[in-house]
């Protein structure tokens, strides 16, 4: 069974600093997707970034980038120039890429990130 581990329950950084959130996963699959979702205090879940395992290039979305290490099964999220609006719970998630009818996505327990003014 696939598992997703986020080893940092909570983090705090000063505004404008760079912060890295860690995620590791366990799978025997070769093709899969990885995601980072953000949940601000409003509770709404928002997709931050997505990585396809067969792509070697790390995904980036503006200030958000990932460091995808397939062999190490590691998928960390880097937030550059952090802003107060980045304060949220961040979830790492995994979806395997095997066959039709089995697109379930498994989440880690989350990292609560506080951006301090």
């Amino acid at each position, binding site marked *: 069974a696939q598992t997703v581990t*986020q080893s940092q329950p909570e983090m705090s950084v000063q505004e404008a600093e760079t912060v890295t959130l860690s995620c590791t996963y366990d799978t025997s699959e070769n093709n899969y*997707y990885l*995601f980072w*979702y953000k949940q601000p205090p409003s*509770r*709404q*879940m928002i*997709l931050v970034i*997505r990585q*396809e395992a067969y792509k070697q290039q790390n995904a980036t979305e503006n200030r958000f980038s990932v460091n995808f290490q397939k062999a190490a099964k590691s998928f960390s999220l880097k937030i550059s120039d952090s802003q107060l609006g980045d304060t949220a719970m961040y*979830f790492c*998630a995994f*979806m395997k*890429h095997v066959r*039709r*009818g*089995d*697109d*379930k*996505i*498994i*989440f*880690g*327990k*989350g990292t609560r990130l506080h951006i301090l003014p």
Partner: protein
Amino acid sequence: DAGITQSPRYKITETGRQVTLMCHQTWSHSYMFWYRQDLGHGLRLIYYSAAADITDKGEVPDGYVVSRSKTENFPLTLESATRSQTSVYFCASSEPRWAGVGGELFFGEGSRLTVL
């Protein structure tokens, strides 16, 4: 309005009562999911559905029942609520990744359920 809506947003019930949480999406997405969110556990998958009349268990299905007679609706029923089912429940939908859209989940706003 387009999107995914859950109802009720807040519900208080008593142990042993039946509760149904509703989920409706307007995108005609193939997949629909129910997750529960608890402190220290993150999001755990309860049930999911690949299409109308096709459902499957997730990580924590015990005590829950789902149905999907129409593509746009995916209700979650707690047949006999227990205190351990106090949680925030999220419904989500997506297109399958083989459709070329990468499997992004679109979430509802959540339903907070308290079982006394």
